């Protein structure tokens, strides 16, 4: 598929933070694309740069951080360097974000209807009644019972799961082309998480909305996404179709990550441990950032690995990928 048909194409994105202690390369040369109705999982551990990637797309990175390089093509338009007013018209309208904590989205002292109607009117020239109807429909769509009544509630009158659904309903209000969901179910109980995942799947299938699902939980992404990007220390180390990556992980980090997830066919066996811990982004080893923890590292890894493409749609950033298991 040509790049122009994709909802979002990110190319060579670099977001760096210029701190007193040095330059933190939170996102370093990241490229990916998401097509219409597609869900992409962006997976990584704390500090891997997955959230900053999401923030960069929406131009929400605060100083001392900024996007220093790269292109973010949204429906063919480059968002990097777009003026603030044009960006404002996109945010919450064509691109929406869902945060881990719904209270990042919701104003605690305003009723839900006030907030939702405002979000509609900010982008659309409709009367208040239409805006209200749209708000009610959005609440209904995310499975909130008696949406007419709940519109008049304040955020604190909702439970955690309900609140997250309200945040999702607000994201849906203007039928965006792209939703960036940053760990939206991490704080929720399993049954509530199941409901949210169900709504997300339905939404993408029915409206063609593209979605980036940022999470540390491989198992959630396994059940939800079509494609997956695994991030480590600011870089995408492995990318591909979900089955391909999870069944035939090639990067030693991806393999380690999958091995450390408890799974029912290995009950009681020791889990695989990735040796060492995530290095500080300020003191990354030169070359491959993973090499000090990597069982396959050798002299070659002191240089920076380039992206290789063993088969179409699959990208790996490693000198010694596990390819012998590939089909």
């Amino acid at each position, binding site marked *: 598929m040509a790049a122009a048909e994709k909802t979002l194409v990110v190319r060579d994105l670099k977001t760096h933070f210029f701190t007193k202690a040095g330059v933190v390369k939170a996102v370093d040369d990241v490229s990916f694309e998401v097509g219409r109705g597609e869900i992409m999982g962006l997976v990584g551990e704390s500090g891997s740069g997955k959230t900053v990637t999401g923030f960069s797309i929406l131009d929400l990175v605060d100083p001392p951080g900024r996007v220093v390089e790269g292109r973010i093509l949204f429906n063919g338009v480059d968002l990097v360097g777009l003026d603030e007013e044009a960006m404002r018209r996109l945010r919450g309208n064509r691109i929406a974000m869902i945060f881990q904590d719904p209270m990042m989205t919701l104003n605690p002292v305003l009723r839900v209807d006030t907030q939702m109607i405002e979000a509609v009117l900010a982008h659309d020239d409709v009367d208040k009644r239409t805006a209200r109807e749209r708000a009610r429909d959005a609440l209904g769509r995310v499975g909130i019972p008696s949406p007419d009544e709940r519109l008049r509630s304040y955020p604190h009158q909702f439970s955690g799961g309900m609140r997250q659904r309200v945040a999702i309903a607000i994201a849906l209000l203007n039928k965006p082309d792209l939703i960036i969901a940053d760990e939206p179910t991490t704080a929720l109980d399993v049954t509530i998480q199941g409901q949210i995942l169900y709504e997300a799947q339905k939404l993408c299938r029915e409206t063609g909305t593209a979605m980036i699902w940022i999470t540390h939980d491989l198992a959630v992404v396994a059940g939800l996404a079509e494609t997956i990007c695994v991030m480590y220390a600011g870089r995408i180390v492995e990318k591909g179709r979900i089955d391909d990556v999870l069944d035939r992980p090639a990067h030693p980090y991806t393999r380690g990550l999958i091995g450390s997830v408890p*799974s029912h066919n290995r009950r009681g066996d020791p889990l695989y441990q990735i040796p060492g811990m995530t290095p500080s982004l300020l003191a990354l080893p030169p070359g491959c950032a993973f090499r000090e923890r990597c069982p396959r590292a050798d002299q070659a890894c002191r240089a920076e690995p380039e992206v290789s493409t063993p088969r179409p749609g699959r990208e790996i950033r490693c000198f010694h990928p596990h390819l012998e298991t590939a089909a």
Partner: protein
Amino acid sequence: MSLAEPPMIETREVSKRFVKSLDLAARIARRLGADVREEVVHAVDQVSIRVERGEVVGLVGESGCGKSTIGRMIAGILRPSAGSILFKGEELSEMSPKTAKDAALAVQMIFQDPFASLNPRMRVADIVGEAPLVHGLVARAELSDYLDQVMRRVGLDPAFKRRYPHQFSGGQRQRVGIARALAVQPEFLVCDEAVAALDVSIQAQVLNLFMDLRRDLDLTYLFISHDLSVVEHISDRVVIMYLGRVVESAATPELFARPNHPYTHALLGEVPRLDLRRRSYAPVKGEIPSPLEPPPGCHFHPRCPHAMARCREEMPALREIAPGRWSACHLNDG
């Protein structure tokens, strides 16, 4: 395990009620005839759990189901409102002060957030070393060696003794919490969401540590978690709770292979798994009801696909439906 040996920990119909007492304004309003009542939360409602020596029992449930409250009662942090807790066959509330102290030391707790459970102004040496010194488990002269030994045991470099909790990463801090618990040579550990806040790769390290400690120190665990994959991995037996009550308990492979209670069914159905791709989630309807006003009868009936008239009125008893398998559901009555 001989049959004669009493379980390491047993709770007998333990309940815990939290009462939000009326403030002055509400008391005056009541005097004037307003219908205000004290709010009572039945956090734990007649729960009986047995943990045999050497066993790892997983206690699973969603927010507000009372799993942490049980853990805290067993660890002696909270007192039960009703029922009794037995340590090696002896009731905690009827022990002599000396035995009660020994029991309190033998049962230690590990918390979810090591930041909140470790004093930020104390050095690791004091956090870990204080209790064994106070309780006379180790002489002051030998304390330093003892600390080195405990820290190595949990995989921490003894050189870090002089550090403060904030100087550690999340995984290391959790190890400090484990070292603190191990320092008094416990027999039983209550782990309350002990790996929930950790990254996957760090979680794997801590879970492996728990399994090593169990093998090397002959420990018994009550492993409280909302994460079914973690519980399935580490436990011998699983107890499922919903809104203060036990709904099902069984040996781990049994429970995951053949869940009996509709809630267990629903819960297992929602667990994301690596090997299930692009599945269609079929959500459990409804929300977890408020424990302030739990539904009558079976607490799960408003969300249960099989609910009958009886479920709305009569609370199902936890019955043994097969050897070692317990479930509280009217459907089992055929």
